[in-house]
Every structure is written in structure tokens, then in C-alpha cells.
């Protein structure tokens, strides 16, 4: 159920958009839904980020993963336990760009004691980290590459990206590695969820849905580019530029059902992103255990809602114990 429902959901979305193409609902699927999705996305991102940013961080709860800044002759760990703002920027960037914390899972030191003498050995299990990196970076490249549909002429930067991405040129059309890497990485993440009992146990419908969505998008994209389902890119570009300029072409030439499916799934992904776990894209920047300065004894962290509380004062304490304290020769304030 957890797996089948989101799969059926994505298939249904695909079917509906294919039917839409068949009966010619071009305006709905190529104009209305994309616009709506972008609107929902933008509103959602702003709402989501504000919903976090407007909430205070009352305490400095940095997770310190390295030596603190203390005595001058002890080397402190600038990136794992930053005591400056610059260090924090570095720490967050390492987290966002290289998945630093996930990388910690990679190195394993283990000991085999088959024979009496213990022996230390190392073994790496980099799969989750590598899979995640491959997934996110290939997605980024694919995303950036699509900018060519929205710009005329194609910017120079984009041409470089495409050149690098299409490094393994085998005939025509140029094979872009990123699309296949994305597909493979998404499949890996899905299989991991399905096959590792531990991860399967914690997975919810909402973990499978975005994976199926991304796989659907990548699959239709690859089909359009490399197979018999090839799409009229000129028509697509015409549509995209039109959408960008808020002048959608009145009557586009028929583009093909598979493009409808692709576009609808992309729209869904955009609309879904800010309201789901995919909002980690923004949230990772705002995680208080990572983006606060570690040296909390050096500067005072302010809690905006800090309020006075009832305490047991020294005067009350001394009143309760004065006789005993005097008898024991402990100095008191009131004789």
C-alpha cells in the first residue's frame, strides 16, 4: 500500500495528461497547469521559508563535531565547530554542497579477530552518500540544461555545461550523461528503500511518491530525447519562451502526449516541493544545529522570549539553613 499507492498516483497523473493530449486540451496542460504549478511553488517556498524564519532560535544548540576554540595552543576545528561566522558559512556550504554529515557514514574501521590477534582493517561503504550526491547533482545539471528551452540564443555557460555533460558523444543526438545518472540514482534510492528492511520499515507513502515522480520525469525526458517518441523541440521551445514572456502561443502545433506527461509531472513536482519533505532543499540552510556559531561562551545568544521564572533565592535558602550553617561555621549574610 505504502509503495503501490504513490506509484498508482504517478501513473494516474501520467494517464490523465496523456488523455489530455489525445483530446487536445493543450491550453490546460501546457499553459494553465504549468502556470498554476509555478505559482503554487513560489507561494509555497516563500510561505515555507517564512514559516521557519519567523520562528526564533531561542538557544544555541550547535552540534559540535570538532575541537572547540579555547586555548591558543590547541588547534580548533574551524569547520566542524566554527567559532566565527565565516566558519559557519563554510560548515553549511560543506553540508549543502558535499553532504558532509552523510559522508561520515562512509569510513568504517572494523576489527577482525578470527585469530587471537586483533587486526584493524578499513572498509568503505559510500553508497548512500554517493547515491545522494549523484542524484542531486545530476538533477541540478538536468535542471540547468533545460534553460536552453527558455532562452534564445542559448547562453554560453549553458553550452559549456552541455559540452561537459555530453562528453561521451556517440553519434547523434548527443548523449547527456546527467539524465541517465539521474535515472540510475533515483532507481538506486528507490531500490534501497524497497530492499533494505531497515529503510523500508521507516519509509512512508510520501517517501515513495517523489521518487516515482522523479523517475517518471527522467524516464519521459530520456524517451523524448533518444527514442521514437522524439519530440519537436522547436515547438517546445516556442511554447516555453511564450510561457516565459506571459504570451503563450495561441495555437501550438501538436507536441505529443509524452511531452504532456513530462510537463505535468514536472508541474506536480514543483507544486509538491515546498509542502513536503522535499522542502529540505530550503530547510537545510536553516537547521539550528548547523548554522549557529559553536563558541557560545564567547558571545551571548539572545532568546527573544526569555521570561522571568520562580527561583529559590539565596535569602530563602539561608533562612532555611541558617542555624545549621552557623553551627558548622559557614559564613551567613544575616546573623
Amino acid at each position, binding site marked *: 500500500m505504502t509503495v503501490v499507492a504513490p506509484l498508482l498516483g504517478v501513473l494516474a497523473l501520467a494517464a490523465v495528461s496523456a488523455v489530455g493530449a489525445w483530446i487536445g486540451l493543450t491550453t490546460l496542460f501546457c499553459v494553465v497547469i504549468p502556470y498554476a504549478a509555478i505559482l503554487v511553488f513560489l507561494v509555497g517556498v516563500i510561505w515555507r521559508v517564512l514559516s521557519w524564519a519567523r520562528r*526564533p532560535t531561542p538557544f544555541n544548540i550547535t552540534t559540535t563535531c570538532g575541537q572547540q576554540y579555547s*586555548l591558543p*595552543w590547541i588547534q580548533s576545528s574551524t569547520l566542524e565547530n566554527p567559532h566565527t561566522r565565516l566558519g559557519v558559512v563554510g560548515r553549511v556550504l560543506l553540508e549543502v554542497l558535499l553532504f558532509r554529515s552523510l559522508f561520515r557514514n562512509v569510513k568504517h574501521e572494523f576489527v577482525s579477530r578470527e585469530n587471537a590477534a586483533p587486526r584493524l582493517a578499513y572498509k568503505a561503504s559510500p553508497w548512500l552518500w554517493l547515491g545522494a550526491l549523484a542524484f542531486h547533482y545530476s538533477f541540478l545539471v538536468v535542471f540547468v540544461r533545460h534553460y536552453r528551452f527558455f532562452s534564445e540564443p542559448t547562453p554560453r555557460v549553458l553550452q559549456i555545461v552541455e559540452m561537459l555533460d555530453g562528453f561521451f558523444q556517440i553519434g547523434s543526438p548527443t548523449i547527456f550523461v546527467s539524465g541517465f545518472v539521474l535515472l540510475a540514482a533515483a532507481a538506486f534510492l528507490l531500490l534501497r528503500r524497497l530492499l533494505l528492511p531497515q529503510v523500508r520499515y521507516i519509509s512512508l507513502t510520501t517517501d515513495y511518491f517523489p521518487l516515482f515522480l522523479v523517475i517518471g520525469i527522467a524516464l519521459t525526458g530520456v524517451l523524448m530525447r533518444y527514442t521514437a517518441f522524439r519530440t519537436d523541440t522547436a515547438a517546445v521551445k516556442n511554447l516555453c519562451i511564450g510561457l516565459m514572456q506571459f504570451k503563450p502561443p495561441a495555437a501550438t502545433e501538436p507536441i505529443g502526449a509524452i511531452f504532456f506527461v513530462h510537463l505535468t509531472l514536472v508541474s506536480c513536482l514543483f507544486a509538491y516541493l515546498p509542502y513536503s519533505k522535499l522542502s529540505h532543499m530550503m530547510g537545510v540552510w536553516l537547521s539550528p*544545529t548547523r548554522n549557529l556559531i559553536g563558541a557560545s561562551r564567547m558571545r551571548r545568544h539572545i532568546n527573544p522570549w526569555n521570561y522571568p521564572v520562580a527561583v*529559590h533565592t539565596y535569602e530563602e535558602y539561608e533562612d532555611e539553613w541558617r542555624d545549621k550553617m552557623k553551627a558548622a561555621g559557614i559564613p551567613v549574610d544575616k546573623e
Partner: protein
Amino acid sequence: MPDIQLPPPEELAKVSFQPRPQGWMDPQVEFRPGTWSYAGKPKALETVGMPNPREWSPTDADWKLPANWKEVILQGLRERLDKYRSLKVFLDICVRCGACADKCHFFIGSGDPKNMPVLRAELLRSVYRNDFTLAGKLLGQMVGARELTMDVVKEWFYYFYQCTECRRCSVFCPYGIDQAELTMLGRELLNLVGININWVMEPVAKCYMTGNHMGIPPHALKDNLEFFADDIENITGIRVDIPINKKGADVLFVIPSGDVMADPGIYTLMGYMMVLHESGLNYTWSTYASEGGNFGLFTSHEMIKRLNAKIYAEARRLGVKWILGGECGHMWRVLHQYMDTLNGPADFLEVPVSPITGTRFEHARSTKMIHIAEFTADLIYHGKLKLDPSRNNAYKVTFHDSCNPARSMGLFEEPRYILRNVCNHFYEMPENTIREQTFCCGGGAGLGNDENMEMRMRGGLPRGNAVRFVHERYGVNLLTAMCAIDRAVLTTLMEYWVPEVKVSGLHELVGNALVMTGEKERELNLRSEPLNEGGEETSD
């Protein structure tokens, strides 16, 4: 061919294993002895004015909650979602990648899937989804939303008190999601309707009234310190002074009170007294601020503030310049990350400067409190302490990084520097069990009580296993830790998993090695055992 027929394999000793539930959504908790802690006593709750004081037990069917318990908890969650960005972000962005799953010592030792940090968080997150997100309201269980029922509350109690707030999972989380923060807030919610454990509430109440967890009254504190001074005199021939509540001292010294009462913490305390005496620091003990530890951390943020207030208040009353803190774990989380925010600014104090070395502790320039490991490391670095590490030759030492000084402070090198100067045999445990990846003792966050023993042994397995390795490989026989709870809990843990290894604090070893001016020939270590025999293995 023999006539005897073998029974087919499947007819051999059959063990029917308990069927495991397929998913985690249906709350079900069985309170088996040894895996949970006794409920808070009404008297303790009344002392600090906490809600719903009553006699109850987790094994009761009826927990005697107020009729509107559900509204109270949900309202409490709503308020906290507005007050803590951490809570909201952590509940929103988890992708359930599973990186944290096998990082929790309780999961490693028990195999209970709800001990995976991600699932412990889902226990709270599922209720959040149900009542605070649109998807949860519309789609319910399909998107992992659950209604807050009494069974869910019981499950919260069971699992939030199976988390030692050690923060190891947050080191591995790609978004820094910190289960300790969720446990703290989860327990805060439970406290709103009077659900808590006695091993937390009793110290809270005692700390509030007498100034320390053990409930040691002022005259008894003085008696105990004098007792230690007698022991030190027996061992060294030097009479150390015991300044108490002394106005005009330069420094207020605050320790975890366990060290005044519990073996082996008392030897660490003797070490403090010797180092402070020998350094000539003009310091004072306080009977009012006689506890740096703060079980408010395991109760509510408000209680942290209420219990912590006495430290700055006493520093102000006594007119000291700065504050020095002893070896304690969660105490230092509060001092490092909460005290200044809650009860500061400490503008009436001065930036800590060691009068002996002249070192200005810039890194504590706002909070004005330093750790005794920082103080002693600085003394040793400047050659102000005469040390004879061979007096610890009976010990082969390994160092346990306590969770809070490790992952909420980053105090890694100071204690190691000290250790290398006070003993000749120091061996590290494997790298994924120390420093920021250190494994918990299994008894932090109020779980170090004896009724919870079985769960503690499970949770302490990864630590015990790493100690066993260095014991077998290097002959390690002493586990040193800078935490009062560690000293109590690890001792028991070692007695179960690695009985050959004893536990000490850092300053016990400093006290052993310290050559005091005018001292007599040392024959005994601080445990009053003949020097260089104390570390011998005892029979199990």
C-alpha cells in the same frame, strides 16, 4: 542401514518467535521490568509546582491524567512550534534517509526499531502531521499521520525515556536533525500533564531546595569536604584548605554534587581540591550553588532556567570575578549552550583570567565560566604543576568522551593533553567510538537509575564493546571520563560487560600524579590503595 529413523529437521526444538508488527503506526508498548523508570513522586512535583502530582505507575492502565490531557498536549505542541524553529524545521524536513538509524546506542543494543532516531522522531512527527499539516488532516495514516491517543502517549513516555539526549544521531544527519531536541520538547509536553520519572523529578526538587541533586545540606557538604581533606592529608601529608561561601574569593567553583557522595566520583573531587590548593587559586565552594548539574535539561526549558539561576546569583552575592566548573557532562551542555542565554548577561563578572599563568580565557568572555580541564591544561602547559605520571603506572587508561562535552561543546584535546601528562599508558578506543562519534554510557538524561538496569546494559553495549577491544588489545584497565553520571553508570556497565576495567574521573589521575609542595613520600593513591597496585585486576 540402521533401523533408526532421524526425525526431519523441522521437528527439532521449535522456537516460535514473537511475531513482529509489520509497521510502526499502531502504538503498542509493553512495560517489562528493567526497561523503564519509576514515575515521579507527587511530593517532588509539588515542591517545584509542576502539574498533576499523584501516585501512579507506567504499568497502570489508568495514568490519572487530567480530563483535557489531549488539548493540553496539543496546545503545548502548538506553542512550542511557534517558539522553537528547531522543532518546526526538524518535524518538517526529515527525508527518512536512514543515515541515523543505526547510530543510536539503544537501537544497536536492543534491535527495537522504534529506537532508531528517525522513528523516535516519527512518534512525535506523526501527531504533528495529524493536527498541524493539511496533508495529514486530509490523508491521515496514508501520509504517516496518527491521532494523539493514550497509547501514543504511553509510547512517547516509553521511547522518550529511552533516549539519553546524547546527540550522536545529529552528527550523522545530513540536515542536523537533533533527536535530543525532540526528546527534550517531547518530555516537556509529557510534563504538562504530569508524566515524568522520579529519577529526574527527585533531583530537580532537591536541587531547587537544597541547591544540589543529592539533597546535601550545607553543613553536611562541609563535613564531606573535610572528610576528603582528611583523606588527602593521610595520603600526602598536606592539609588542603576548604573555602566555603567565602566572600572576596576570585573564583566560584561549581561541581556536580554526585562527586561529593558517590564512589568513584569522590576521588575526582579530591583531585580538584589538590589541584586548586596547589595552584594557589583564591577560590570558594558554595553550599547554595552546590550543583552544576541540571536535571531541568531533562524536564523543561523553564526548569533549566530555574535551577541554573543560582550559579550567577551566587557569583554575584560572593563577588567573585569568574566561575570554574568541575567535570560533568550535561552540566556543561547547560553552562555552554543555555546559561548565558537564560540567566545572563554576566556583565558583573570579569573575563576569566588564570592568576597563575596569566592566560585570558577569551573563549568564555561572555559566559565567564571555564571548565576545570581548560584550567588544568593551561596550568600544565605553562609548567605550573609538578607531575609524576609514574604514580599512575598501574593504570592503562582509555578515555571516554562524554556526550555533552563532546557534541555540545567540543572539549576533546584539553582532557587528552592532561591525560598524556599525568599517566604513561594512554590508549584511544577506535575512532568511530570516541570524540564526536562517542557512544553514550546508556544512562544519561535521567535514565541512570537502577530499575532501568536492563535497558542501560543494552544501551551501553557499544561503549562496553569498544572498551573490551582496548582491554584485550592493550590491557586497558581504567576508563576515564569527565562526567559524574558516567562515573556512576559506566562503573556498573563495566562490571557487566568488561569486569576487568574500572572507572575514574580525569582529576583523580591528576591528583595521583600531582607532586604537592612539601608532601610526604606517596604510598597510596587517592583510593587509599597502595600505589601501583590499585589498578590490578580484581577477580570477577
